[in-house]
């Protein structure tokens, strides 16, 4: 389908709707571009994208992986926005695996002119020309480095991009998703007596589904404690010249993070996911003391929505990403 046909179809849709007085109001305050890889959660992503489009009054451009038989299509969908019905236009464009950037020209022409564009890049390929092309059209971007291959390549690529474009408004879902873990790790050391033991931290161990999540948590711990990453090995260098190891254990099919363990000289501090709660414990001299805390996590849709439409810059993310990328890049 050519862009002209799509535009004509959009026009026809709008007329048909106003003839039938279907619409409460048509949303046209921004364009939300969502890269929806053919992942098992593609339907979930496109449904979440629709809800976000309704809530933020956006035209939705969905880029899906095409396998030859996927056609571009245009439709409108409506949803409740409080007491009002809001209708949004959705344009689905296939991305040709052989020539992914071919779709860029079409996207450019379908953006709502003069209004901001937002990009939720849900998939791999941060090094693809398609991603760099789309980046130029978007005011804010959310990616997810945890969907990259297990070697943390996404983190490294993201760090490279941010070094080149330090002003890019770019967020990583792997970072956003793990906010409750940062809180839990901090809670382990709220007791001033325990906080002191962080000076003798020897190892950071994270278990979970993806290396990216684990490395970002470790990167954040390193940032908070003023660490650098040593050039030769995946280790932190402390400000006093000490070494702190980082280990990631993969537990396939688990939550993004299952467990964080911090070993200090004479004790092990651990936060471990148990259903809707996290068990925080300290083991020292053969004795374990612990307590349960609620684990409160926002839905992905909410995190993406906040990042695209609301959050301010967070320097902790940039710092943590820098260390995380170094931890995984050797």
């Amino acid at each position: 389908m050519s862009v002209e046909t799509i535009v004509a179809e959009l026009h026809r849709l709008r007329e048909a709707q106003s003839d039938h007085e279907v619409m409460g109001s048509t949303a046209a305050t921004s364009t939300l571009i969502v890269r929806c890889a053919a992942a098992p959660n593609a339907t979930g992503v496109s449904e979440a994208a629709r809800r976000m489009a309704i809530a933020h009054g956006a035209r939705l451009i969905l880029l899906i992986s095409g396998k030859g038989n996927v056609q571009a299509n245009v439709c409108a969908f409506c949803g409740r926005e409080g007491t009002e019905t809001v209708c949004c236009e959705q344009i689905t464009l296939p991305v040709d695996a052989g020539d992914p950037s071919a779709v860029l020209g079409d996207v450019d022409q379908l953006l709502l002119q003069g209004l901001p564009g937002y990009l939720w890049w849900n998939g791999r390929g941060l090094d693809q020309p398609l991603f760099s092309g789309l980046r130029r059209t978007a005011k804010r971007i959310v990616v997810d480095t945890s969907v990259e291959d297990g070697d943390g390549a996404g983190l490294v690529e993201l760090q490279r991009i941010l070094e080149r474009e330090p002003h890019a408004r770019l967020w990583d879902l792997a970072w956003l998703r793990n906010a409750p873990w940062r809180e839990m790790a901090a809670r382990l050391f709220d007791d001033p007596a325990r906080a002191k033991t962080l000076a003798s931290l020897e190892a950071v161990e994270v278990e979970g589904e993806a290396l990216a999540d684990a490395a970002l948590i470790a990167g954040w711990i390193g940032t908070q404690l003023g660490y650098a990453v040593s050039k030769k090995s995946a280790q932190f260098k402390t400000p006093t010249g000490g070494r702190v190891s980082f280990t990631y254990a993969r537990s396939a099919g688990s939550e993004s993070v299952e467990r964080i363990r911090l070993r200090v000289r004479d004790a092990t501090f651990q936060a471990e996911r148990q259903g809707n709660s996290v068990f925080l414990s300290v083991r020292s001299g053969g004795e374990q003391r612990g307590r349960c805390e609620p684990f409160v996590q926002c839905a992905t849709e909410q995190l993406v929505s906040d990042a695209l439409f609301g959050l301010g810059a967070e320097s902790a993310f940039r710092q943590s990403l820098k260390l995380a990328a170094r931890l995984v890049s050797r």
Partner: protein
Amino acid sequence: MTTTTTVAAPRVDGEQNPLRAGLPSSRITDPCTIVLFGATGDLTMRMLMPALYSLRVHDMLPADFAIVGYSRTQWSDDQFREAMKRSIQQFGADVGAPEGAIWDDFVRRLSYISGDFDDVACYESLRKHLEEDLSEFQTRGNVLYYLATPPVVFGEIVKHLDLAKLGPEDTKGWCRLVIEKPFGTDLVSARKLQSQIERVFSEKQIYRIDHYLGKEPVQDLLALRFSNVIFEPLWNYRYIKSVQITAAETVGVEQRGGYYDRAGALRDMIQNHVINLMTLVAMEPPVSADADALRDEKFKVLRATRPIPAGRMDEFAVRGQYGEGEVAGKEAPAYRSEPDVGAKSNTETFAAVKLSIDNWRWGGQVPFYLRSGKRLKRKNSEIAIEFRNVPHRLFGEMGDQFEANSLVVRIQPEEGISLSFNAKYPGQAMHIRTVSMDFAYGSGFGTKGAPAYERLLADAMRGNQTLFTRWDAVEAAWEVVTPVLEYWEDTRAKDFPNYAAGSQGPKAADELLAREGEAWRQL
């Protein structure tokens, strides 16, 4: 082999924990025991316990807390825990089933005392509970007393807390008192209650609940007024013609006929919720967001509220009582046929008053119409600011639906804001139509605000009094409504019932506005 013991949460200390720096945390940090007087009652079951559990599930409660229930019903700790579990199952929203590790941890912190509120032995038992909580749950001796009982026993409870040396002078940590509405039944009784309470608690320790103030849109109203430049210049008698504040319900008195028949709509809703909303609309910008700065301004509005002239009550206040009718397609009985209501009851189930504010901003020229009623056509709480018309109709008579602008802050059921303005209808002719710009909080931000009781409980634990009513404002609000109450008590309403259940309210209410060439917004 290792042994696992449960430990108390350490003191949160952002300065010393390097991992905490920069983290957002909405958790309440002060540990405490919450003592619920009236623990078997409707409010505890429907609102307080679900709110407390929700705070826990959403990780907002302090890590160390305990809850003690106190009522006459003979229950053991386990029976109390069972009842609270059922209440959460039935009324808790967004918290999931009460089970699993978080529930287990929550429920073991609940305990119960049964007895009368004047039983000295029970207060001794309460002391033991507080001491046990201090050592077992590390509550640091902080106590939040919550009076969820019938108001007649408020004074009694406070007196006994003092006698038992459980008041603020004698507790190890902080000691706060949360009091449910109504605070008194008229000016005299409110003053009496205040004098009983202030003997033991200072104003800084008293949290008078008006749960309307905990609702999201009430704070949105402050944000709307004081974080936008476009409204404040118009917010005065020069541009605003009138203000309507409505709190309409479709429900009748339900199981609370006994209480309601002694209260009525003016006491139950207007004296507290609706007048509170009026003060937020009318007040001057506070110098800061600090609790007292805001409450100072609210109080000034009440001081400037013109007393209703004696002898002209009917020109300023209207009452109604519902007869039988139909609400949402279902037959509804007359008020006088409701359980625990007298067959000749003179109690109003609808009240409307017209007030004016004599200060620089309002100049006594802007009527504030307040109304509240039960069994009305639609559940609807809102504040409607009606602006004046343009000074000159440039487009002549053509704009037949050309209306003055209005700004409506919806409080329930749908929280949001709409602004109506006029625009040209497409076509060659110059037709003007009124259109509306609408903002719904839930979907606009993709997130919901905390329910009122959660917010208020959390604020009381944090020691934030912003959303609680200060004594001077309570007293001033009673001063505004007491003359009407007395007049209505002295003169029997001859036309009761004067509106059908499911209608817009009594005709006399329409006439109250019609005299000024105005009309209520339709429910």
